[in-house]
């Protein structure tokens, strides 16, 4: 193997340990020197590429998945809808956004998905207060084309969530009454029928249009949502 070929092969793969390569190292002190230098450089390269991984990453990945995992088989008929939504989640975004049959499912509305999500997520969120900063909230919100000027109240939790199989922004706020209010920013690619207000036996919610997304808020029946909806919209800077 000539020197040029030797260098070419080593540059392409410094971990190459082929017989031809090892023979070339043995044959020539110059090759040996080049090989040693390159191994040293490779160590430096690897150290430079191995940037610090944030603490708690794997725990957050497990937490996120626990939200996406479908709940156990529902017992009451009321939960058929929840199951349908979970199946839609499980099928994944690729299918959901591209397939007109699932995307336009007439029996599930934007509000239904919000209610289902709130019921499913609440065991994991109730009682938490992570006090995310404005910066953290806006970092999540940015991909939905929105940003807050200021936090619209006491935020206890924020993350991306799976909304009818599509990523959406999910934030939980503690209301003045001390109850959790769930706020979603759902991209308009989630094409579900919606009405400005929805409810079931325990919860109610409101939907309001933003420039590229829908704002959905859900609270308990007794929770007044009008004021909060107005406040949230007031703090949203939609020019981004």
């Amino acid at each position, binding site marked *: 193997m000539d020197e040029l070929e030797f260098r070419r092969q080593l540059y392409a793969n410094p971990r190459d340990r082929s017989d031809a390569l090892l023979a070339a190292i043995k044959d020539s002190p110059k090759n040996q020197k080049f090989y040693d230098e390159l191994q040293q450089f490779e160590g430096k390269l690897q150290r430079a590429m191995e940037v610090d991984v*944030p603490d708690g*990453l794997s725990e957050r990945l497990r937490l996120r998945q626990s939200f996406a995992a479908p709940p156990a088989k529902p017992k009451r008929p009321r939960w058929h809808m929840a199951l349908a939504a979970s199946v839609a989640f*499980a099928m994944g975004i690729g299918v959901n956004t591209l397939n007109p049959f699932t995307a336009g499912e007439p029996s599930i509305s934007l509000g239904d998905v919000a209610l289902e999500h709130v019921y499913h997520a609440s065991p994991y969120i109730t009682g938490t207060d992570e006090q995310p900063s404005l910066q953290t909230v806006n970092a999540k919100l940015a991909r939905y084309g929105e940003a807050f000027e200021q936090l619209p109240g006491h935020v206890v939790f924020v993350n991306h969530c799976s909304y009818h199989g599509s990523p959406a922004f999910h934030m939980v706020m503690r209301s003045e009454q001390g109850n959790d209010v769930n706020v979603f920013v759902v991209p308009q690619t989630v094409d579900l029928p919606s009405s400005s207000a929805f409810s079931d036996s325990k919860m109610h919610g409101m939907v309001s249009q933003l420039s590229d997304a829908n704002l959905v808020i859900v609270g308990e029946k007794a929770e007044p949502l009008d004021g909060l909806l107005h406040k949230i919209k007031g703090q949203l800077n939609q020019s981004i």
Partner: protein
Amino acid sequence: MILPFSRKKKSNSSVNSGMDTKQLRYEALVQAFSRDLYRYAYWLCKDKQVAEDVVQETFLRAWRSLDSLKDDKAAKSWLITILRRENARRFERKQFDLVDIEDHSVADQDALSSEQEIENEWLRRQIDKLSPEYREPLLLQVIGGFSGEEIAELLELNKNTVMTRLFRARNQLKDAFEKDEQRGQCNG
């Protein structure tokens, strides 16, 4: 607000054990690959928060389609494929500011104390200066530990092209490094 999701434990045991296996597989994937995936994502988008978001999306998609992963030996390249698609979607959305590495230092400025760390930071800037078609195969080889064939498959290139790009990437970095060393010696 907490609802009884799991009342029918007995009748669901087979479903549950299927779920448990899936759960175990998922957790093993997180354990084994999340760090490398984060690093790879970081180099693709050069922003810690965005990198974590991309990794979150990647693992969520992986969870949803975990049943389609038949061969656990292929797990890493399967995850990388999902991550690359997720990153491409992020570009399609074009809804956030791209952060320039000059403004957004890789390491914390406070941590730049030892010679080693200064060297790391310098090299990171050089890696960042590589054109993406050279940088990506290099990242896959060094962080991912993939072979030339595997990189070729992941990037949908032929193997010779990959090997040439790897050669050029390292050549470029090593040249820059040697020039910098010489300059350092002159200055010193």
